């Protein structure tokens, strides 16, 4: 395995792990549902994407062939994450979850 690959893999792994963690921290820490929605849709998706990428590089550098299956999963995640977020936001608006006080504007009435 080339030195470059090793650096790239490690970096991607750490990047991915960190972002996954940040997404989760956001989920745990942010004050209301709508703000919490941001963490997973972006940070976590990106984090997992990075880990996928590291996996692609890892296996490409140990095996002979190149396999992009992980990329497919990543693409899939990127395609679906906004939809999940949309659906959840709609559900939250329906239920009327509380928003933080200084939120400007209002969720729609469902």
């Amino acid at each position, binding site marked *: 395995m080339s030195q470059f690959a*090793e*650096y790239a*893999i*490690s*970096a991607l*792994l*750490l990047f*991915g*792990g*960190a972002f*996954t*963690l940040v*997404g*989760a*921290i956001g*989920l*745990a820490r942010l004050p209301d*549902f709508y703000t*919490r*929605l941001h*963490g*997973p849709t972006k940070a*976590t*998706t990106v*984090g*997992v994407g990075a*880990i*996928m990428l*590291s*996996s692609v590089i*890892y*296996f490409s550098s*140990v095996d002979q062939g190149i*396999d992009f*299956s*992980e990329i*497919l*999963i990543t693409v*899939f*995640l990127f395609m*679906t994450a906004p*939809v*999940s977020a949309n*659906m*959840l*936001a*709609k*559900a*939250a608006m*329906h*239920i009327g*979850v509380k928003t933080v006080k200084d939120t400007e504007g209002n969720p729609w009435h*469902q």
Partner: protein
Amino acid sequence: MITIALYLTIGMVTLAALLNVYRLIKGPDEPDRVLAIDTLYINAIALIILLGITLGTRMYLESALLIAVMGFVSTVAMAKYLKRGSVIE
């Protein structure tokens, strides 16, 4: 080096999963819980990939793919349940 990075990453993802579980149990509303489980699904994908790297096998890749698909459908269904009650109508 990869090993260390791998362990650190696994640690971070596991921690992330724990935080998700915290949110899941804490709520306070149902959408929060569904959001938490949706995130948990994605973390599980990461864990599976990391397991694959640790074991040096791609045997578990399809499991990750499946979690992605199933996690999505499950989240969508739960969200629809919350707002429509009837998932299939």
